[in-house]
């Protein structure tokens, strides 16, 4: 192993930061549209309720591979990106979270990640 890799492999911040970056990207690109549709346009009746009908969405998100991938990409990176900022935000607020809280934060998201995969499969 080269020295570069040996040294940077000692802590997992690079991995958590990559997930944060992916999450930031997913939130920036996908969340505006998702929130608009799910949170505003359909509930306020601007788009008809049929666009989010059970038949349509279950066929897309639970039965097509592209749909499954979409569900994963919309939900999972956003959680990783958000939890990373929550964790660092605690440091900013001078709440000195120990290893336990760190494991709880990122661990919960790991559980949700696996659960998401389990749900769509």
């Amino acid at each position, binding site marked *: 192993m080269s020295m570069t890799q040996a040294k940077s492999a000692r802590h997992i911040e690079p991995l958590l930061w990559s997930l944060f970056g992916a999450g930031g990207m997913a939130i*920036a690109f996908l*969340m505006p549209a998702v929130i*608009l549709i799910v949170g505003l346009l359909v509930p306020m009746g601007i788009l008809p309720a049929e666009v989010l009908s059970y038949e349509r969405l279950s066929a897309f998100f639970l039965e097509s591979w592209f749909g499954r991938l979409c569900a994963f990409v919309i939900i999972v990176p956003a959680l990783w990106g958000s939890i990373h900022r*929550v964790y660092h935000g605690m440091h900013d607020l001078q709440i000195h979270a120990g290893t336990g809280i760190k494991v709880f934060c990122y661990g919960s998201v790991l559980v949700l990640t696996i659960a998401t995969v389990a*749900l769509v499969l």
Partner: protein
Amino acid sequence: MSRRPYVRPMPANWFMSKPAYRFYMVREASCVFNLVYGLNLFAGLWQLTNGAEAWAGWLALQAHPLMIVFALATLAMTLLHTVTFVEMAPRVMPQQIRKMIPDNTVKAAMFGGIAVVTAAIIGFTAMGAM
């Protein structure tokens, strides 16, 4: 002459002391909204797997007035995230690439991409109504 350096403590509310810090904290706080909304979407997916009735229940929750207010707030925070994310993105790219592609081109491409993706998702979703 004796040395007696004075160390000032970091105030608990340091982030209120400058507009730049306040803005930073709002930017970081956007993640709380996105986290809760992400959990909401996860719950939605779960209800989708539980059948039509469960799904309808989740959709009804989305239409609750408080939920609509929350969605509005989350949308605003998300847009703040989007803008700040795009502003920062080119500066994180390798210097070699930055020298070939101007930062503003990258930003314009990202904003363009976001517009296209947003329009595509809304269009694709709305098509189902026709």
